[in-house]
């Protein structure tokens, strides 16, 4: 257990990786969005997608924790299990903190009618329309999803190399196209459409969380036999 916690602490030794950079990216994106909102002379709600910027960094973090931090952890004789739990635990904490920040930003944003310039950065139509816990769940799961998908692809790459990554990426694409073709053949697009229409941010978070759990379990199974 203590070694699991140590894995998380180890990755916080350099504060930039998990705290500094996400905050910097968020702040930069926020300030730029605000500047643009202020330049648009419209007296009604303006929405931008700038708040997704840190998410892409989380994808990179997920990849790097597998390609660089994992080999380093092996050099310090850290078990694969301790590395996995410590890294995923650390990321959950970061995602939790970021979600809190997004919620807080959203509250201030509404209270100030879009920072006085009708600009909405943390409020996103549909996503943040529900109660606060639905918004929180959505942000948290999306952040986890980005990290885990990066981690998962990197485990595939570590274990099976370029060809394995290619096969799994192509395989996933082919499967998705196949599903789409099947849906078309059976004339089910109507049902699919109405299914999506029925979803709320909360239920979408639930489905995404399920996918996260599957990918995380898959990553662990692969990591158990991965070499640095």
């Amino acid at each position, binding site marked *: 257990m203590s*070694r699991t916690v*140590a894995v998380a*602490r*180890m*990755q916080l*030794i*350099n504060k*930039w*990786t998990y705290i500094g950079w996400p905050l910097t990216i968020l702040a930069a994106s926020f300030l730029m969005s605000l500047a643009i909102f202020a330049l648009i002379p419209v007296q009604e709600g303006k929405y931008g997608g700038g708040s997704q910027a840190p998410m892409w960094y989380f994808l990179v973090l997920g990849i*790097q924790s597998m*390609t*660089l*931090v994992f*080999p*380093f952890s*092996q*050099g*310090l*004789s*850290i*078990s*694969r*299990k*301790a590395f996995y739990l410590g890294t995923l635990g650390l990321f959950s904490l970061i995602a939790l903190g970021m979600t809190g920040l997004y919620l807080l930003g959203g509250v201030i944003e509404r209270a100030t009618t879009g920072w006085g310039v009708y600009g909405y950065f943390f409020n996103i139509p549909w996503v943040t329309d529900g109660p606060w816990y639905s918004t929180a769940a959505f942000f948290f799961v999306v952040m986890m999803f980005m990290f885990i998908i990066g981690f998962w692809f990197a485990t595939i790459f570590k274990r099976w190399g370029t060809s394995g990554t290619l096969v799994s990426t192509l395989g996933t694409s082919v499967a998705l196209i196949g599903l789409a073709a099947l849906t078309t053949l059976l004339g089910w697009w109507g049902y699919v459409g109405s299914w999506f229409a029925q979803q709320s941010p909360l239920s979408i978070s639930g489905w995404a969380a399920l996918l996260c759990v599957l990918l995380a379990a898959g990553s662990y199974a692969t990591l*158990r*036999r991965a*070499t*640095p």
Partner: protein
Amino acid sequence: MNDTIVEARNLIKHYKDLNALDNVNLSLSANRIYGLLGRNGAGKTTLMSILTAQAFATSGEALVFGASAYENEAVLSRICFIRESQKYPDDFQPQHAFRSAALFYKNWDQAFADRLAEDFQLPIKRRIKKLSRGQLSAVGVIIGLASRAELTFFDEPYLGLDAVARQLFYDRLVEDYAEHPRTIILSSHLIDEVANLLEHVVVIDRGRIIMDADADDIRGSAVTVSGSAETVDAFLLGRKILHRETLGSLASVTVDESLGSRERAEAQELGLELSPVSLQQLVVRKTMAGVGSTGVGSDTGDFADDTLEARR
């Protein structure tokens, strides 16, 4: 002390087209300095990776402190193995790597790490990505030394280090080992440089252990006899010849045997010169002997060719 702390039984590691380890059996005792010697690609890193559970054997068993190291915190916490091509987190500086090691090794000595960093003139606040090859090696050497793990592996630790830094490493290793005995496995192909440090030598070639002996036993286990070719050949008739060199009518022959005092006296009477064989010479000759078809037959074959050449 003869506590066995590392034991490899019938280890085989098979890659697509080669046997990286070909039935390796090995037993290492506590508190000694081992040399794991061999050419590039001989299987040194593979063997160390499997012992430390960083890689997996195709078959066979690797026990460290009596158990498999795989996912075994009790065993892993006593091992340090920084590989030659060690990777570090993207944003890490040497100081971050050292602080990480401090989290995992209970015997970590930060003051020692600081002193070593100064000795190696390592910029501890530069990103590891930007370090030179030698500085990168220094990071690994410092982690290996300051962690004071009971079982420490050094994987070609001198790459890119200049002669002064290499000597520093050897000196610090011996000093610290004297104060804090532990088991050290030093993989190397710069054999002469490390020969004096080693207490036990394991030579691996093409996945097989071809030598596993105490350094003391090896010193003097082979000898080079030189003098006039005919006298040398007559003197060494029937002995295990490792290598033969001729220059004109002179021959210099290395035999894989030690000579008794009576034989030494006889050699002197015959006007033959005896010289010791360095560990490096011995390893090179033994490895090369394995490269030829095998056995005594090829030795005598070379012998005949050399003789012919010398007579022309």
